[in-house]
């Protein structure tokens, strides 16, 4: 990895050079430890800030979608060290997340008297820890992958599903029947959608023949005529897989329209009922970390990861391409949240078991077909594309008809 680094452009290697320079300042026994600690601190700092500004972007975008302005009041407080002088500009409300953090920290932390104190404390810690662990295998740039694992995809889904344990832990330890029921319902949802989420990724593994995220990105790294990227989202099976992945990722990260586990307007807060103060903020944080990690995986697997969309755009560093695509995914998720209504629990599970899972299985076959016909000559390529499109579109059409059978646009009749 470091051997190829010397030939890279300056911007591409600058952060790594800085890290290596700092590591070399220390004595030999500390170097390995410092090297890894810097990686961890960098992930925590970058994605901590990313989380903070995602919350404010979400509130502002949702506001705009509803023809409001969103939060724009929080400026900087008056610091006495400046002797009364302070910045009067509100900074477009961008300091809002820091004000929220201070609020969450200073709030009273209430633990129910009957609660299982240890599990009640551990649940938010575990949920944040596991959702942060998923960042370890995401390739943020050409040379920026914290841990290069051969089975990175397996690791990602294992760490991602461990957060479900924490959710049940939270519901159980609160010793509140509403929390417990909500946690069970959250589990039902998360397990239902774990299946299409993983099945949508399997065709990529079939086609690329690897479980390593970095190799998946490298497999997407060529261009037809120099400007048509070979990202998997631009293949029929990849597009279908990406759509299934998006829907399942929404459900996995408890976001609207699948935010039943903590539906604000219907339940109190689901499994978070007995949490307050910073523990609540930790769950909130874990939810956003999970969303960011899943978006990052979607970018890695379907949207070409850190690859530039055109050959000449490679002058922009790879990590910026990754972050740009990640931001686009997050904005799309916020846009969906501002548009769709919440599903009912039966609609939710039916969508998964009767539509997404069969479609993902058919798509798995489609991916296998694509992998087997990889070497055909180009007139046959047209037939390959046509077959692949038909295999995806026809089942979508018929299963969609069956899923929405009996649902016509509602007509409202008012009392005379």
């Amino acid at each position: 990895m470091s051997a190829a680094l010397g030939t890279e452009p300056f911007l591409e290697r600058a952060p790594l050079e800085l890290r290596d320079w700092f590591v070399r300042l220390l004595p030999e026994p500390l170097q390995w430890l410092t090297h890894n600690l810097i990686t961890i601190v960098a992930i925590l700092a970058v994605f901590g800030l990313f989380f903070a500004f995602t919350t404010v972007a979400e509130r502002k975008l949702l506001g705009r979608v509803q023809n409001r302005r969103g939060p724009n009041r929080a400026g900087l407080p008056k610091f006495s060290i400046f002797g009364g002088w302070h910045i009067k500009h509100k900074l477009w409300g961008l300091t809002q997340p820091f004000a929220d953090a201070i609020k969450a920290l200073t709030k009273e932390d209430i633990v129910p008297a009957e609660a299982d104190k240890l599990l009640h404390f551990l649940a938010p810690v575990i949920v944040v820890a596991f959702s942060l662990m998923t960042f370890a295998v995401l390739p943020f740039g050409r040379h920026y992958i914290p841990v290069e694992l051969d089975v990175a995809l397996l690791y990602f889904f294992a760490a991602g599903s461990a957060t479900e344990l924490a959710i049940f832990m939270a519901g159980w330890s609160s010793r509140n029947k509403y929390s417990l029921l909500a946690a069970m319902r959250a589990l039902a949802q998360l397990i239902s959608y774990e299946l299409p989420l993983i099945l949508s990724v399997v065709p990529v593994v079939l086609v690329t023949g690897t479980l390593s995220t970095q190799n998946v990105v490298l497999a997407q790294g060529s261009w037809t005529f120099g400007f048509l990227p070979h990202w998997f989202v631009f293949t029929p099976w990849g597009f279908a897989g990406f759509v299934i992945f998006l829907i399942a990722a929404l459900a996995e990260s408890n976001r609207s329209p699948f935010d039943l586990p903590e539906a604000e307007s219907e339940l109190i807060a689901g499994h978070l009922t007995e949490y307050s103060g910073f523990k609540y903020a930790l769950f909130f944080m874990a939810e956003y970390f999970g969303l960011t990690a899943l978006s990052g995986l979607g970018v890695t697997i379907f949207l070409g990861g850190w690859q530039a969309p055109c050959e000449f755009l490679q002058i922009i560093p790879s990590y910026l391409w990754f972050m740009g695509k990640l931001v686009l995914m997050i904005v799309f998720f916020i846009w969906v949240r501002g548009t769709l209504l919440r599903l009912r629990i039966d609609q939710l599970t039916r969508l998964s078991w009767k539509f997404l899972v069969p479609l993902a299985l058919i798509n798995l076959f489609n991916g296998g077909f694509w992998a087997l016909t990889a070497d055909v000559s180009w007139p046959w390529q047209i037939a390959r594309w046509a077959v692949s499109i038909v295999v995806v579109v026809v089942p979508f059409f018929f299963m969609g008809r069956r899923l929405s059978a009996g649902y016509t646009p509602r007509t409202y009749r008012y009392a005379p």
Partner: protein
Amino acid sequence: MLGSGILKGLAVTAKNFAGSYHDPKRMVTVEYPEQRTVLPENYRNFPFLVSENATDAMGTLRCVACQICEKECPPQCIIIEKSKDKKPDASGKMQLYPAVFGIDTSVCMSCQICVEVCPFDAIKMDQVFEIAATNRFEGLFLDREKLAKPNSYYHQIHPTEAAEVDARLTADRNAAAEKAKAAAAAKAASPVAKPLDEPRRSSPSEGGPATPGQ
């Protein structure tokens, strides 16, 4: 086809998003402390006491401390103590006045019953809503001085209602003055006749101020 409704919905929200930047008419909110909407005339909040004169508010309160509002108030938030002496009111008649008049706005529920029962048009509904205070007992308890606001202010916030009240009060005063004159004339003509018990005020539309639209 499945999903077409979702795409239509996404288009609607995208239109809202883009429109909110270039079309101020779309915005449903105002930037409150800097921008304010005009309150509707019928908007009401806590009551205030009407005084005839802005310079001598305490001397020209219309309230005669009859304590009807105090008795009618459902949450019992009005406290009145009658004065020991009498002062001439706007029509020159000697009346009691409230030595203490207080409204606890933390208890008041803005029901307007005090306004409806007042036979003197002395208490009316205000439009203030920025009453945040740091002390619940001192900041939210309004005494006589804080409650008194001139008639011109009443005209400003409820123009239609205030004009009706003024017309009625002027008519009553004129009628009272004429009656007094007639009584004086009759007394002069037949000094043995017993003078009529003159009603203080005889409004035909008793039972509260005629609010517009009532």
